[in-house]
């Protein structure tokens, strides 16, 4: 009997997709098969709306070892036989429904992606977006999300080292919760997520299977937000203690040689874990759901196959090693049960006490249709990109101090210490530069002189006004942050948060953002090694700002040659590297929104100037020339200077290069700039080096005293800056 409209709605498949399944199978699917197709063909697992666009990303380069899609996370080679795997993933929809568990299980999921590969998870980062804190519901969401990240991550003993939080009303009904995990290990310990070798055993380890999280992939992640209110049962509940045991047991297991593959049960649970592993291994599987240990009675085969109960893994065990594997898991107090075998017939055979309930080719199940949409440039973009400066009154010089304090206190700029001090950012003995000290986190690599940086970035406002330029800037800013620490950018992961992909304007935003990001990735030599797509982020027809979030990893050759953002010593000379540009730099700026209530006007960026700046920063820091470096971004030059004072606990006295509008000079967000400080004796060296790199360099002033002085504009005690900056969120 053909599936009913209600059945299809439940698993978010279209009638056309259903017909495709029938024609591939040559018959109607069984209930279990239909559930499996629904999950695997969901946007979350199957990327059917985004696959064609994702091909635009450059994915190879000097450091790349494992590319996107090949395994659970991308891997880069950092030399000396060591590798880093990292990936970012969204848990937006679950976090909106149940913020604590949604965020907690988001952390749990991304951590499993890393240790599944045989890499020890070392660092976490998270990129969050909420609606304004003036709305109590948004406060509740943020409190729950931060609590969930802290509750889960702290229990695992993985350092949560960096992240960002931005606020805008477009995120009120659509918060974004993107979690990144980074792991490190030896190249020879890398483990694949594949099922191969007929006769090998499929074991399920970790938690028992319950009814939680049914339809997480097909239901939550593939619908817009207003359809989700009744879907709380689709959110899973996390058990970080179980996850911690799994980490230790699996890392021990990956060093034994007893297994051929390891795969976590994430979205779509056992279905996606088993089918994806079988597909990667060009194999089939024969699984009996009656052998799956459950936490509740009366579960149907359909429910067992689609449950998203957390903290479960499947292990493909070499035949004959199953007892040893069981003893290993027993030692950690974890269940391990043989639920099936690997076959060579290419079929996914699912049984219930021996009776076949699903029998479909793995390749069919795992190849959803790929949709190509015609991106259409929305007509409102033209107007949005214009700024009529006749209508925007320039600020008065006398207001500089007041405006600076206001910007420093703005939720998007102020200190996020209230949040990050709830995360353990030091466990593991690797954290060299802690949250709030620099533009990126720096972690040393034990028993070497090397270190790496980690940073996340993504300005939704820029992308909304100009998705192409916004996409370029998302990557460029992450790379600039990386370079400000003295690190060479190596690769990125990204999380693409967009609205409903079935709308042409949303597809346009996505297409443009991806093109912009790709341009920047090519020019800055930071290929994409992993990522995730989160679509349908909209409520009542209003989509979020297109918000691609970039997570970047950079390499520092000598950890001693690193840099932080705070001013260091009295008398040091302060310089601006890069060009302040003109009034257009006010476009989409924090200042424009805060003071004039406007989100409009496009930013501009020149990738050659950007690259030159990074090369200069990396070289100057590598030579030990810079005492501080801080990227000029949200809030512009004045805010950047103020932050270097606050972080360093030092004053500043100097001039602003005056030209054109004062608001643009102070608070414009012209790209490709950084504020640095150096020993006064090194001025000539820096100027020579900047000249060679073709980077404009402007003397701004001197570090010293307890006040922040911009001659003729502002004269404030640094303590006032600290107070404004600390009191925000």
């Amino acid at each position, binding site marked *: 009997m053909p599936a009913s409209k209600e059945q299809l709605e439940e698993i978010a498949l279209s009638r056309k997709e259903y017909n495709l399944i029938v024609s591939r199978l040559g018959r109607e699917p069984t209930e279990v098969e239909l559930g499996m197709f629904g999950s695997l063909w969901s946007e979350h697992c199957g990327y059917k709306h985004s696959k064609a666009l994702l091909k635009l990303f450059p994915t190879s380069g000097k450091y790349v070892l494992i590319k996107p899609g090949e395994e659970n996370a991308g891997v880069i080679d950092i030399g000396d036989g060591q590798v880093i795997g990292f990936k970012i993933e969204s848990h937006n929809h679950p976090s909106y429904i149940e913020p604590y568990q949604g965020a907690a299980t988001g952390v749990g999921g991304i951590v499993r992606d890393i240790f599944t590969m045989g890499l020890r998870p070392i660092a976490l980062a998270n990129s969050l977006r909420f609606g304004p804190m003036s709305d109590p519901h948004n406060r509740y969401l943020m409190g729950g999300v931060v609590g969930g990240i802290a509750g889960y991550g*702290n229990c695992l003993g993985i350092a949560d080292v960096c992240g960002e939080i931005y606020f805008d009303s477009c995120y009120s009904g659509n918060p974004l919760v993107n979690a990144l995990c980074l792991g490190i290990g030896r190249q020879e310990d890398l483990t694949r997520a594949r099922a191969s070798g007929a006769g090998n055993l499929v074991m399920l380890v970790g938690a028992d299977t319950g009814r939680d999280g049914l339809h997480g992939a097909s239901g939550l992640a593939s619908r817009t937000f207003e359809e989700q209110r009744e879907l709380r049962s689709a959110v899973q509940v996390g058990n*970080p*203690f179980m996850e*911690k*045991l799994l980490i230790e047991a699996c890392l021990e297991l990956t060093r034994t040689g007893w297994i051929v593959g390891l795969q976590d049960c994430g979205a779509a649970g056992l279905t996606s874990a088993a089918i994806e592993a079988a597909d990667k291994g060009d194999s089939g599987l024969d699984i009996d759901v009656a052998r799956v240990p459950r936490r509740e009675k009366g579960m149907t085969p359909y429910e067992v196959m689609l449950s998203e109960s957390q903290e479960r893994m499947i292990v493909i065990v070499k035949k004959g090693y199953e007892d040893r594997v069981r003893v290993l898991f027993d030692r950690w107090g974890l269940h391990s049960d043989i639920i099936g075998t690997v076959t060579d017939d290419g079929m996914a055979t699912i049984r219930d006490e021996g009776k076949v309930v699903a029998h479909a080719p793995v390749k069919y199940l795992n190849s959803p249709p790929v949709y190509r949409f015609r991106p259409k440039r929305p007509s409102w973009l033209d107007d949005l990109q214009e700024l009529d400066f006749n209508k925007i009154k320039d600020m008065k010089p006398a207001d500089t101090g007041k405006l600076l304090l206001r910007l420093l206190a703005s939720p998007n700029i102020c200190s996020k210490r209230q949040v990050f001090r709830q995360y353990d950012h*030091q*466990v593991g*003995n690797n954290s*060299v530069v802690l949250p709030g000290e620099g533009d990126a986190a720096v972690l040393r690599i034990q028993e070497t002189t090397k270190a790496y940086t980690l940073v996340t970035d993504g300005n939704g406002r820029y992308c909304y006004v100009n998705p192409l330029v916004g996409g370029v800037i998302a990557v460029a800013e992450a790379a600039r942050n990386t370079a400000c620490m003295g690190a060479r950018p190596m690769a990125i992961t990204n999380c693409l948060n967009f609205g409903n992909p079935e709308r042409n304007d949303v597809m346009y935003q996505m297409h443009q953002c991806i093109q912009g990001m790709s341009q920047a990735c090519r020019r800055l030599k930071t290929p994409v090694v992993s990522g995730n797509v989160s679509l349908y982020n909209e409520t009542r027809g209003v989509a979020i700002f297109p918000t691609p979030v970039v997570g970047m990893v950079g390499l520092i050759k000598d950890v001693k040659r690193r840099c932080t953002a705070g001013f260091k010593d009295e008398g040091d000379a302060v310089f601006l590297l890069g060009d302040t540009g003109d009034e257009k730099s006010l476009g989409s700026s924090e200042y424009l929104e805060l003071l004039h209530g406007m989100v409009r006007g496009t930013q501009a960026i020149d990738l050659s100037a950007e690259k030159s700046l990074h090369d200069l920063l990396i070289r100057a820091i590598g030579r030990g020339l810079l005492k501080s470096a801080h990227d000029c971004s949200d809030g512009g030059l004045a805010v950047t200077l103020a932050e270097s004072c606050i972080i360093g606990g030092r004053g500043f006295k100097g001039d602003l290069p005056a030209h054109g509008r004062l608001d643009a000079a102070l608070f414009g967000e012209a790209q490709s700039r950084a504020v640095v400080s150096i020993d006064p004796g090194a001025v000539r060296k820096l100027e020579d080096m900047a000249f060679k790199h073709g980077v404009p360099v402007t003397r701004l002033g001197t570090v010293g005293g307890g006040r922040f002085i911009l001659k003729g504009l502002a004269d404030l005690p640094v303590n006032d800056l600290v107070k404004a900056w600390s009191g925000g969120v």
Partner: protein
Amino acid sequence: MKFGIVVFPGTWSDRDCFYSVHNICGQDAVYIWHKETDLTGCDCVILPGGFSYGDYLRTGAIARFSPVMEAVADFSKKGRPVIGICNGFQVLCEANLLPGVLRQNEHLQYRCQWTYLKTETISTPFTNKCKKGQVLKIPISHYEGRYYAGDDVIKELEDGGRVAFRYGTPAGEITAAANPNGALNNIAGIINKQGNVLGMMPHPERSCEDVLGSVDGNIIWESIIAGI
């Protein structure tokens, strides 16, 4: 000398402790699985930080029943040094090897930050290398770190010079603002009556290298090494 580092399911500071006593201080170190009962060969036992058994019932409440804890109690009765850090401190309190309890932080939030510890006594195996009143920069990372005990116990600790460390300012002043969790009398660490068991919430194993921001944790390891 040899440090024995106890590992409960859910412990995570074990590797950091190993790294600091072995790689930094150059001492032998072994992991001791919580089901083991033999501490032969160990000169000092470390109960590290983490979330033993997920801390689901109450921090340290289940870990105290692990087989290894009987051996740790015997070890301490022989007057040999035992140091419990963070979750390890909580386990020692639950196991009655130290008095008092560690309650949820006053502000009901997890806290990870640098703290400045004023050394209150230098006549212990853990602080004999400190100068009197020396301030140590060592970070905390906990949700349940607010030391609490009845008035009589607090009096006994104070009168007996058994408060090892207090949270203070970088200059060593003991102020309410410098107290990160609401602990009574700013108590960060205490010792038992015999003076051979130390419990402390801050993590000395995280502050043993310049590159990590402080080397003050080494003074505690060096004190233990000197006393063996």
